[in-house]
């Protein structure tokens, strides 16, 4: 990429972003917008730094929930997908369920989960995140394990390879990029689910609850600051999954088509 191209690809969005912030700031001042509607970026930023340590605490709680759920969901999802690839009839049972669940706001189950545990436990949220992640990972990794090029299978069969060998040497490597695709989707989904779960009551330590309480107390700029914290959290999760993907694919040398 030439230097001019790189400058353009970075510069134009940068300019747009700055212009947007400037417009926001200006509009608030000019139209004298009430603080409960929209706070100016300057104030949001100052609130962010003022509350930095509290935001960090809240973010760690939500983030930990997301992380635990992410790991648990991935582990169970991968394990289940191995089972599905072995027993194809289960595949035709479970896959349509997983796909249908994509359309459904399953995070409402948190309300149910909250009843099954004590009121201060973070477990319901972690379970919720695990569930969401589980289905994403399951569908993608199962696809990776089963949708192998026919020519590869034919070659292995001509070597009289056993099922386990085929699994290890062909299916698993084929499935690795799918796992990372699933991670890139699940990481932000985990953060979002961990958030949204907090709106259903239960422990009030996470970012979501803080946002709501700040609004309830009409401290809107502070609420926006927490929102900023939340966005940063989501971004971090996503970037980590991208880095993991790059680290893993460096070894394999496979060409991944990643959409920026």
């Amino acid at each position, binding site marked *: 990429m030439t230097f001019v191209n790189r400058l353009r690809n970075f510069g134009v969005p940068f300019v747009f972003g700055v212009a947007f912030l400037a417009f926001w700031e200006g509009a608030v001042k000019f139209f004298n917008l*009430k603080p*409960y509607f929209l706070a100016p970026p300057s104030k949001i930023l100052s609130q962010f730094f003022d509350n930095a340590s509290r935001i960090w605490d809240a973010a760690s709680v939500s983030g930990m929930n997301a992380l635990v759920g992410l790991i648990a969901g991935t582990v169970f999802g991968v394990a289940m997908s191995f089972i599905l690839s072995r027993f194809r009839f289960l595949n035709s049972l479970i896959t349509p*369920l997983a796909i249908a669940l994509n359309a459904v706001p399953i995070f*409402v189950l948190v*309300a*149910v989960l*909250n009843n099954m545990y004590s009121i201060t436990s973070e477990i319901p949220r972690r379970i919720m995140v695990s569930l969401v992640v589980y289905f994403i990972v399951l569908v993608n990794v199962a696809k990776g394990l089963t949708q192998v090029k026919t020519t590869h299978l034919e070659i292995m069969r001509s070597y009289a390879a056993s099922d386990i060998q085929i699994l290890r040497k062909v299916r698993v490597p084929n499935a690795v990029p799918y796992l990372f695709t699933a991670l890139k989707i699940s990481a932000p989904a985990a953060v979002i689910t961990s958030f949204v779960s907090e709106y259903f009551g239960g422990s009030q330590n996470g970012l979501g609850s803080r*946002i709501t309480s700040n609004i309830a107390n009409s401290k809107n700029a502070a609420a926006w600051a927490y*929102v900023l914290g*939340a966005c940063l959290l989501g971004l971090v999760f996503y970037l980590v999954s991208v880095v993991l993907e790059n680290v893993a694919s460096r070894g394999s040398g496979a060409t991944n088509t990643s959409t920026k």
Partner: protein
Amino acid sequence: MSIALVAVLWELYKIVGPEKGGKLFGIAILPRSNDTAMPHIWEMLSRYAEPEMRSPNSKLIWFVVLKGAFYSFRLAFVGFVIGSTIGVALAALMTRFKTIERGLLPYLVISQTVPLIALAPLVVSWGGKLEIFGFTWPRWLSASVLGAFLAFFPIAVGTLRGLKSAPAASLELMDSYAASWKQTLFKLRFPAAIPYMVPAFKLGASGAVIGVVVAEISTGLKGGIGRLIIEYARQATGDPAKVFTAVFGAAGLGLAMAGLVALADVLLMRNRPKETTT
């Protein structure tokens, strides 16, 4: 069939699991399995047929849940329409003006990784307090706006990809016909984009539902399914099966929106070559 599988697992756990909840490796991870916390499946189903509350003239629960789900459905639908209109228009604009594409696309892509849901309480707080040109912001609009917001991003990104997917040879062909940009947009780019737009719309539909439900629960917007879930959850100690009725209602809502998109999919892709999936 898969639902039956889940039901079987649920009942199995009830039989096997500890009454007061158990500790796995010292962590209180196993949920309580007594009837209060985990009602039997048949109790959940039969609850639909019973009245909502103990008072003599309250309606049957399935009616209440259906009403709530329908209310939320309408909000989600409005949000979906708004979000998709803006998303598609923006995608068309970005196809026309490369600068706009360069400037906005990174934000659109990033926004899909960022929990925009966090804005939910803020948007909802505008309800009833905001006045623009004498138009007071109704509370339900916040839910739709949030739904629109969540639907907009995947739809814009997907539509843009689709619009740009027109083959170069076909674009040259349209050039050779001295076709205007608008003609090329409607006769070539949009039809070529449909296979990309359909999955984007599916994401958008589920986004709209999520947005609306989250908005409802963070305010307790009256009439929607979100509020019903919260209410019933609070009453769960006395009436455990109730909350599940609302949960299934919410599930139905999501499926209904997805069904709409699937219907559009079938109608629009009638004449296309079928993709062979291994």
